[in-house]
């Protein structure tokens, strides 16, 4: 069977190589979802088996079923803690967006401001939050404010640095066009710089979302909060002291689940906003 024979047959005839490629694409598409789920199930099953085979006591490593049972049993306590952690996370993320975007806009308005203040932002970023916390603990009384401040410090830098980069990555010719048409500084910012920096900002936001959660949890760990406003970190510490491993695992699972959801939501938002124009959000057909 020669290749010319195949080509001459029908207009829509696809050769073997293309068919193989199409099959591969289809498999990859399903595999992308199926494989992680499959591996996860296997891992959970092995976890359960290892507990049984080695007769590991539940206060060291609980079986998955027990963790699930605790998650349902303690749902009132765990979910109110989750809500507290989420509150800190989203508030600090919102403040990080406001602060990060606000500062980067300020930076692009004047090179002098950027030169003067950017180093401070870097210092704030590279100093481990755990090391700064004792200071915050001394200066700030309010527990929520403490946690917010910590989470904010961790989360705002990626937004600041990404948005600053984005605001400065504007097509020179478009800037000329705005100048030619007598655009004001405000118009250039609003109609050109901000939209142009959108992909960069959203990239920073995705990182900041995860960091805000990490900040909220770490801050609570160091603060050692308890009582009304305590979040999931307190539940973990508490459960650790009481050797209540199932609850510890339950809280841990809730935290990582929250992180995944935050990431997925931010990715979804980013794709919605960019899908019509930015390379990063293009679907495969294009």
């Amino acid at each position, binding site marked *: 069977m020669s290749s010319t024979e195949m080509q001459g047959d029908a207009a829509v005839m696809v050769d073997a190589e293309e068919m193989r490629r199409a099959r591969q694409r289809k498999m990859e598409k399903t595999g992308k979802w199926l494989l992680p789920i499959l591996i996860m199930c296997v891992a959970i099953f092995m976890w359960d088996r290892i507990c049984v085979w080695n007769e590991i006591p539940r206060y060291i490593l609980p079986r998955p079923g027990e963790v699930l049972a605790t998650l349902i049993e303690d749902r009132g306590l765990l979910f109110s803690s989750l809500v507290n952690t989420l509150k800190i996370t989203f508030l600090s993320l919102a403040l990080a967006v406001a602060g990060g975007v606000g500062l980067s806009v300020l930076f692009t308005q004047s090179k002098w401001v950027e030169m003067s203040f950017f180093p401070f932002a870097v210092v704030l970023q590279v100093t481990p939050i755990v090391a700064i916390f004792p200071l915050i603990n001394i200066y700030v009384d309010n527990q929520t404010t403490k946690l917010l401040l910590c989470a904010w410090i961790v989360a705002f830098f990626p937004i600041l640095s990404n948005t600053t980069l984005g605001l400065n990555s504007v097509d020179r010719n478009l800037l000329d*066009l705005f100048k*030619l*048409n007598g*655009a004001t500084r405000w118009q250039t910012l609003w109609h050109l710089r901000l939209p142009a920096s959108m992909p960069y900002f959203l990239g920073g936001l995705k990182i900041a979302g995860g960091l805000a959660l990490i900040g909220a949890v770490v801050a609570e760990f160091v603060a050692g909060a308890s009582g009304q406003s305590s979040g999931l970190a307190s539940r973990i510490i508490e459960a650790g002291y009481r050797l209540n491993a199932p609850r510890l695992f339950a809280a841990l699972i809730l935290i990582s689940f929250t992180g995944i959801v935050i990431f997925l939501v931010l990715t979804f938002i980013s794709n919605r906003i960019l899908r*019509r*124009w*930015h390379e990063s959000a293009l679907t495969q057909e294009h």
Partner: protein
Amino acid sequence: MQTADKAKTDGPQLILRSVGKVFGNDVVALRDVDMTINQGDFLSLLGPSGCGKSTALRLIAGLSSPTSGVLDWRGPAMGKADIGFVFQEPTLMPWASVFDNVWLPLRLQGVSRAEAKTQVEDVLAQVNLSGFENAVPRELSGGMKMRVSIARGLVTRPRVLLMDEPFAALDEITRFQLNSDLLALWERERFTVIFVTHSVFESVFLSNRIVVMAAHPGRVFGEMEVDAPYPRDETFRTSEDYAHLTRKASSLLRSAMGIEGEGGDDHVLH
């Protein structure tokens, strides 16, 4: 309605008097440029890379100021809306629709979407892009993007349209089509066009006057009238006149570049 059969112009609109531009790194981009641009001219600035033709265009646009000399505008004072600029790249805002891209110059002057609607739709019709208002740039071909860019340059009904090698990145078929369409538009509206190009063929096909520039330092080397009637269509491209004028422009360009010999035999310069 003006007659389009002969490229008649209505007196000087802009006179450049010994204009010079020296950049900060002591590069002399332009030296002693004298040039007269008439109302309704389709003037091509033709020259090799580094001859300062783009710099001249930026000076005329007011995007940078001359180191020496003056730009003497005649007639009514030039406002922001009186100059349209078309870049080498389409230079569209990728996040904005075709409508929003074309609307931009009006929007910056405070014209609302509703007020701008007819004007934007008219100018899109002029560049044969009706029905594409809601498309975003990446859904368009290279030629269509350039049409959007031209529409944006024309939406304020400028008196002068500055074009900086607008078709250089397009394939030949698309370029020819856009050349014809641009000419038709110009014959209808009779705005002044200053067209930077390094293509002899393009400059001869389009313009009524060609200013040839030389490099190092950038300067005006010579000037020629393109003595062929409008409207010019595709038959003009294969005519004896066109061949003759192209040879003439080509040899002028060769002299400007310091290349010896007859310019007419082979047009190595595209």
